[in-house]
């Protein structure tokens, strides 16, 4: 059109030329200035970043420093006592008057002066002194005004033990069969290094015998017992002429059981005596340690996991201790109510459970999303389903745990038990928490994430691709299967990554449906059928909770909380990286250069 229009609403610009020299100050909306908003947004981002990075950094620093060997310090306090150990924490506080009053007369004034010079503040150290069986405590608080003398004894040694926690002392000699063979610390250290590997080997043998050999004997016997029980039940159900045959079967089973029992009992005794001799052998050697009250105590090598002269270690030796501790942490089983030793079963449990969960949730979620996006007609019902899904994502996870316990364990589990594992009753097989139920519960928990994410990606598949396939004469299913799913796969994997991260870090529901403090067996092992879905398992998240808040020796366990958290985060990161790698490969294959 050629007609130029001027809409009357358009504001007239006021210029100074029209109004002479009178400059008219126009009102300008705040929103027209970009910079305050920019600052606001930047600030928000900054705050979020600081919080996230701060948390990660804290976990990283605390978690990775736990295993670094510390020096062993000896404080001589004014009351004449000595404390030998590692400083685990330092803090500043204001000591009360009574605390100073408890000091011996002669030192009170000196201590008051000292405190005054520091404006009443004192530094105190939490010293891990160990030797629980002698002192009934693992830790001591020592304030700086109590200290008379600080030394780092050359031959101060720390022993990490199988039980009773750490032992701190000064190396005094080596014992064989109760006789002291040397009192020279160098010679003692050499003898220790010479003998210790043998002791460790024997300990491993004992572990093997107790756990695997005796374990398999027990399981064989248990199988025979179950057979007897099964026949008993059969007999009870049988009627008429089949009774006789059943009776005979039962008798056969009983005979087999008793003959097996006899045979196994002999074997059992055999193994037991082998274990006893091994144990006796490991107890032959011991180191003599002088503790702070001056007495000398023997520490048998059999009880020792690791030990080192902390104040003599060079940088490389410290690194090797550090490395050794990480290795133990990653590959061994826990000791001492989980506060020491490794977390291998928990790592294993976490990974197996997470993978199993992904295996369940991905097909379910993807199929549900496919139905919602590709087949379901938009309408009230579909909207309701979507809303329900989104709300499901907001349900507290403990509720899923309760549901899992009620539905999976008690309802499904007991039904399965009654049908297939009747002989084992009243001991539940599936009727209690276990790996399978945990995976299913978490699958339910993460299902909304997967569905919503998958739906989004399916919606993002260009319609032109679908039309292209239809135009070639593809059916709906062929289009979905050959075009839509491959194209959406990378995005679906992203959804799975999110779900995995969420699932792997979840603790609350697991406490109800299968994670335990200490699982006697791994969920996958060498005994038929190899994957034991009914077994309870250990989980890193639960482990953190247990170590941090349920532990007797909470002060010693605290660093383990950070280390375990660090590990859990690392595992999630690794799982994610694998998934991201896969996704990127798919992405390159299917999407890359498309504009």
């Amino acid at each position: 059109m050629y007609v130029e229009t001027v809409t009357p609403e358009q504001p007239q610009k006021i210029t100074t030329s029209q109004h002479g020299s009178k400059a008219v100050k126009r009102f300008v909306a705040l929103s027209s200035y970009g910079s305050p908003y920019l600052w606001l947004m930047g600030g928000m981002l900054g705050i979020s970043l600081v919080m996230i990075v701060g948390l990660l950094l804290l976990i990283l620093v605390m978690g990775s420093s736990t295993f670094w060997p510390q020096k062993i310090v000896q404080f001589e306090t004014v009351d004449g006592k000595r404390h030998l150990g590692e400083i685990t924490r330092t803090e500043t506080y204001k000591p009360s008057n009574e605390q100073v009053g408890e000091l011996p007369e002669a030192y009170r004034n000196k201590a008051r002066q000292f405190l005054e010079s520091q404006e009443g503040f004192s530094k105190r150290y939490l010293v891990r002194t160990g030797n629980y069986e002698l002192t009934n405590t693992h830790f001591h608080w020592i304030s700086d005004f109590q200290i008379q003398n600080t030394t780092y004894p050359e031959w101060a040694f720390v022993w990490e033990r199988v039980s009773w926690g750490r032992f701190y002392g000064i190396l005094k000699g080596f014992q064989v069969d109760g006789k002291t063979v040397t009192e020279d610390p160098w010679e003692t250290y050499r003898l220790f290094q010479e003998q210790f590997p043998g002791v460790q080997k024997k300990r491993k043998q004992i572990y093997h015998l107790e756990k695997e050999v005796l374990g398999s004997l027990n399981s064989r016997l248990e199988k025979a017992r179950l057979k007897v029980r099964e026949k008993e039940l059969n007999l009870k159900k049988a009627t008429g002429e089949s009774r006789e045959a059943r009776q005979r079967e039962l008798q056969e089973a009983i005979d087999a059981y008793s003959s097996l029992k006899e045979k196994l009992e002999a074997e059992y005794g055999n193994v037991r005596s082998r274990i006893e001799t091994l144990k006796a052998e490991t107890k032959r050697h011991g180191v003599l340690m002088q503790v702070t009250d001056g007495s000398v105590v023997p520490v048998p090598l059999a009880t020792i996991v690791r030990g080192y002269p902390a104040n003599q270690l060079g940088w490389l030796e410290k690194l090797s201790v550090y490395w050794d501790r990480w290795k133990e942490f990653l590959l061994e089983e826990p000791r001492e109510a989980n506060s020491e030793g490794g977390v291998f079963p928990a790592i294993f449990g976490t990974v197996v459970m997470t993978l199993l969960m992904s295996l369940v949730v991905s097909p379910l979620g993807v199929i549900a999303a496919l139905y919602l996006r590709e087949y379901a007609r938009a309408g009230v019902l579909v909207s309701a389903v979507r809303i329900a899904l989104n709300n499901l994502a907001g349900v507290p996870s403990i509720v899923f745990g309760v549901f899992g316990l009620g539905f999976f364990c008690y309802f499904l589990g007991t039904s399965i038990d009654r049908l297939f594992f009747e002989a084992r009753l009243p001991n539940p097989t599936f009727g209690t928490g276990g790996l399978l139920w945990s995976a299913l519960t978490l699958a339910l928990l993460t299902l909304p994430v997967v569905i919503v994410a998958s739906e989004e990606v399916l919606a993002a598949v260009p319609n032109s691709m679908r039309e292209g396939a239809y135009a070639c004469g593809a059916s709906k299913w062929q289009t979905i299967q050959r075009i839509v799913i491959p194209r959406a796969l990378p995005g679906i994997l992203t959804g799975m990554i999110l779900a995995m991260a969420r699932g792997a870090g979840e603790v609350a529901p697991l406490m109800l449906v299968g994670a335990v403090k200490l699982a006697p067996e791994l969920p996958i092992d060498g005994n038929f059928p190899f994957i034991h879905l009914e077994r309870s398992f250990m989980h890193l998240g639960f482990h953190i909770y247990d170590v941090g808040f349920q532990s007797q020796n909470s002060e010693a366990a605290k660093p383990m909380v950070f280390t375990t958290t660090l590990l859990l985060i690392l595992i999630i990161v690794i799982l994610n990286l694998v998934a991201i790698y896969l996704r990127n490969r798919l992405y390159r294959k299917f999407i890359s250069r498309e504009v």
Partner: protein
Amino acid sequence: MLQKLEPVDGRRNMKDPKIQESVNAIVRVAHGMEMEPAIHPAVTHLKDNEVVLRIKEFSLWYGKTQTLFRISMDIPKGKVTALIGPSGCGKSTLLRSVNRLNDLIDGVRISGDMLLNGDSIYAPEVDVIELRKRMGMVAQKPNPFPMSIYENVVFPLRIDGIRDRRILDEVCERSLRGAALWDEVKDRLQDSALALSGGQQQRLCIARAIAADPEVLLMDEPASSLDPIATAKVEELIHQLRGEYTILIVTHNMQQAARLSDFTAFMYMGRLIEYAPTGILFVKPQLKETEDYILGRFG
């Protein structure tokens, strides 16, 4: 905007009477005044066996807005028929109606029918999938699938369950040669099709469209994203395919329509305006509207 216009002379200050006439023509159509389309006898008196596609009184609505208005035309067998018209006039819609792609869009309604070699396309008992297999389509925007070049080309065969490697290989090569793409991709058939350039993707889609030997080839601006050389190749291809296939092609390029097609249909605002042998339509159009469009006076 058009509502403000009325077909009355002298209201607006327009000197050129030709422009005024064109405006009047536009306004006539815009007001839905029924206008008989000018259809050349060469395409009205076709025998049944000379017609591949018979469009009968076809109208289409997207929801409440009508997009196609009672279109009737016969597409002759083995010939190239071009659809021209300004943007938004419904060329793509008409083309997509032929293989019922518009079925996929919610809220589409139609009336009238089309016959493919005498078989109704819109009858309720028609198997749409079988129907679509009888046609090949090249969309306005290239839409390669997320798979290898090879799999893209043989996709129509794959969905028929053909697994014989020999047949697939042969079809792949023949189609790619047909689409003038073979030399460029013969060494990387297993690479992703999405890594091809836009023009190569366009030709790949052409190769895919001819892979299953369709009865009708529907092409929606197949040269829109191609450089002159590739365009020449595609035109060359269409030349070769003429006779063997029936081609219905949408184009914005008058020269292309004039060069390539045997018949040309001019559409405007959802209506068929004029339909005649290309030579006649471009040289001696019956209607003012057609002439204006061809000479670039509007649209």
